[in-house]
């Protein structure tokens, strides 16, 4: 099993700044926009981007919610190991808001499909966009594409993309691992 570094911490920092700038281009002061991080792994990226937008780019009223999609997944009872839910924290309505869903890796698109259903429980948004750090091309099961992506990867199905964050693994990095 070999592990190749795809992005180091410097690369990730540059990418985060670029993603923040792309978001600002489309959402200005974020007065009508909310960011939704997908539990569990998308929340690190969402928190990091929120901090960056607030501290480096002076965005004041930034709303960030965390969404758990466990109860909306389409593989309930089809997996060998049971799914454990994490918490949802969305203390605002998303009615008529622009929503940006944030996740770390876009693979089959099924998590995003579940998130699109889940988000409807909080109102009818004006539109929904998708931001991911890694877009694994050629592995989609559904017609879902990101609006903002950190890096596109042509990994084959036998390969696994691992994202590690400072908060949990002491350093920021993205690896590709051969199974």
């Amino acid at each position: 099993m070999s592990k190749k570094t795809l992005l180091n911490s410097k690369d990730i920092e540059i990418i985060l700044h670029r993603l923040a700038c792309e978001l600002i281009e489309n959402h200005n002061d974020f007065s009508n926009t909310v960011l939704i991080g997908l539990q569990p792994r998308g929340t690190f990226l969402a928190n990091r981007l929120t901090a960056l937008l607030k501290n480096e780019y002076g965005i004041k009223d930034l709303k960030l919610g965390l969404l758990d999609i466990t109860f909306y997944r389409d593989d309930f009872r089809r997996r060998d190991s049971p799914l454990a839910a994490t918490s949802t924290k969305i203390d605002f309505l998303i009615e008529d808001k622009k929503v940006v869903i944030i996740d770390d890796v876009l693979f089959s698109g099924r998590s995003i499909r579940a998130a699109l259903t889940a988000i409807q429980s909080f109102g009818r948004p004006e539109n929904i966009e998708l931001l991911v750090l890694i877009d694994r091309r050629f592995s989609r099961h559904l017609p879902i594409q990101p609006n903002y992506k950190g890096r596109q990867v042509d990994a084959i199905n036998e390969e696994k993309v691992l994202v590690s964050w400072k908060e949990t693994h002491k350093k920021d990095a993205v690896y590709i691992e051969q199974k």
Partner: protein
Amino acid sequence: MDQLSVEHLLGIKYLKTTDIDLIFKTADHFKEVINRPIKKVPSLRDITIANLFFENSTRTKLSFELAEKRLSADVINFSASQSSVKKGETLIDTVNNILSMKVDIVVMRHGNVGAGVFLSKHVNAKIINAGDGTHEHPTQALLDSYSIREKLGSVKGKKILIVGDILHSRVALSNIFALQLQGAQVKVCGPTTLIPKYITSLGVEVENNLKKALEWCDVANVLRVQHERMDIKYFPSTREYTQLFGINKEILDNLGKRIVIMHPGPINRGVEITSEVADSDQSIILNQVENGVAVRMAVIYLLAQQIKR
């Protein structure tokens, strides 16, 4: 561990502490779900649940039905009063007929002790016991413990008093098992005739003086006198029962501490509890009802997770 150790929910006595923890953790998530603008999740889209109530119920039946619908399951209801049971059909025949319509989970209330256990051995479906005679009512005990945990932070080490008709109460027995499993101390209080003879063998203390018992406890779970299950007279009059075991504001105000008041319903106002107490801010009776839906969603969700197609 993210899976229950049991295949059916027949009684609290079959559960482990880890099962209760898992149910409560899952219920926390569902409590958040049922407070959303849209209170429904699609998890159980392809599951069919039959609610079989051979005994009357309003609260439990509504609570189960709501929990099932909030999980997007298909629901069929059955009450014994409108069924072929009256025409002489046996329990297994009734249930097997319903199961041949492809039902995955059966929620059953029955007047006979052990009806759920019996059914689980003979039919191919998940069984949830919604009360069997004077034996167990596991989901009620779970939601009671969940409500105590929500109000006081934890159940462990708390002193819980169960007041009233212990003899005919399935809520009392399930609560005793559930509370002891989670490390609480349990005492019961009521007329000697309504306390089972061997209850102390379960590690439960008995106190006949209501005032002393209330002074001891952190939480008092007040039960109704079940006149419909009494074949003989167990106490002289309802008025005398109320004087000796009825909870009123005066007795609570003289305790020197604030205790939490619970009641599984239905309440006989002015008998075991006065309206003033039932509607006071010490009472968590309505929280119990809300938590009932979340806890039942968790139980159904966790059992459904084990169904493989």
